[in-house]
C-alpha cells in the first residue's frame, strides 16, 4: 500500500500540478508528464463514449500489474489523478482525492493570486496535500 504520486489536470488537459510522494514508478521528465496528462484527458473522453449501456462517466480506475490510477473528475472539469500501488483500497484512494479536492478549493481557488487553469504554485496547498497523503 503506497501512494506514488498526484496529478492535477485542468479542464483543457494541461498538467497544472504534479507531485511524487513515494518511489516505485519510473521518474518522468516534466515533458513526459505533460504528454501523459494530455493523453489521459483524451482517453477519459473516449472511454465515456464507449459505454455498452446508457451514458457513462469516463474511466475512474485504471489498473496495471504494478500500479493503479484513480481519477476524480470534478464538476468544473478539473481532474485529480492519484497513482497508487495495486493493493491500495478503492475507498481510501477516493477519500484522498476528495480531500485533495477540498484542499484545492480552499488553498488554490480561493487564493486571489492564483490564475485559474495555470500551474499551481502554492506552499499552503503543498503542505496540505502532504498531510493528507501522510494521513492516508
Amino acid at each position, binding site marked *: 500500500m503506497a501512494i506514488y504520486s498526484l496529478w492535477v489536470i485542468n479542464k483543457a488537459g494541461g498538467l497544472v500540478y504534479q507531485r511524487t510522494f513515494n518511489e516505485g514508478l519510473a521518474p518522468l521528465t516534466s515533458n513526459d508528464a505533460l504528454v501523459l496528462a494530455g493523453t489521459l484527458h483524451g482517453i477519459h473522453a473516449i472511454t465515456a463514449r464507449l459505454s455498452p449501456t446508457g451514458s457513462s462517466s469516463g474511466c475512474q480506475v*485504471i489498473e496495471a500489474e504494478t500500479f493503479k490510477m484513480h481519477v476524480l473528475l470534478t464538476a468544473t472539469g478539473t481532474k485529480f489523478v492519484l497513482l497508487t500501488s495495486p493493493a491500495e483500497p478503492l475507498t481510501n484512494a477516493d477519500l484522498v482525492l476528495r480531500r485533495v479536492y477540498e484542499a484545492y478549493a480552499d488553498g488554490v481557488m480561493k487564493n486571489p493570486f492564483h490564475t485559474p487553469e495555470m500551474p499551481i504554485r502554492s506552499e499552503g496547498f503543498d503542505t496540505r496535500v502532504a498531510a493528507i497523503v501522510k494521513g492516508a
Partner: protein
Amino acid sequence: MTIYSLYIFDRHCTCVYYQDWHRTKRPRPASSGALLPGVSNAVSGQSDSQAGQRASLTPTGGVVVALGNGELDRMDGPTSMSTLSFDEEAKLVYGVILSLRQMVKKIAVKDDTLSNYRTSTYKLHLYETMTGYKFVILTDPNAESLRFALRQIYTGPFLDYVVRNPLMVMDSKEQGIDNEYFRAAVDRFVRGLSMYN
C-alpha cells in the same frame, strides 16, 4: 453482473472478431468495407438488415441475447442505438487500449501492461498474447479481473478452432475469424462464467 461484449484485434490493429451478450446500447452497423467480413453477424451491415437471418443464427450468433434475454439486464429500457457505428467503435476501443498501454509502459518501472479500467457503467479487461492478438472484454463495473477468462478463450477455443485450423488464414487482412465452432465455443464459455447472468 453481466458481460457485454468481446472484441479480438490482430496485430495489424484490425478487429477480427466481435460478439456481444447483454448490450442495451447497440452500435450502428458498420459501413460497407469498413469491417472485415466474418467479424460478426450482428454488426456487419449486410446481415443486420435481414432480421430473418438473424433469428436463424440463434444458437451460435452473438446477437441473440440482445433479442431475447430477460428484462433483468435492461438498464435503460429497450435497446437503444449508439451514435457510433461499429467500425468507429472498434477503432476507438483499439485506440484507447493502445494509448493506455503506452502510458502504463512509460509510468511503470519494469515491464508492465494494462490489465483493466473501470467507468461508472462498464469495465474493460485486456489480455494480449505474445503474437500480438488483443482480447478485450467489456463487463459490469463490479466484475473481478477477467484476464484469466480471456486467457482461457485464447488457450481453448482460439487455439483449437482458429490457430490449429488449416482452413483459417491467419493475418489475412481480408477476413475476420469466421468460424461457427469458435463462435459457439466462445458463447458457451462466456455463458458458463459465474459473471454471466
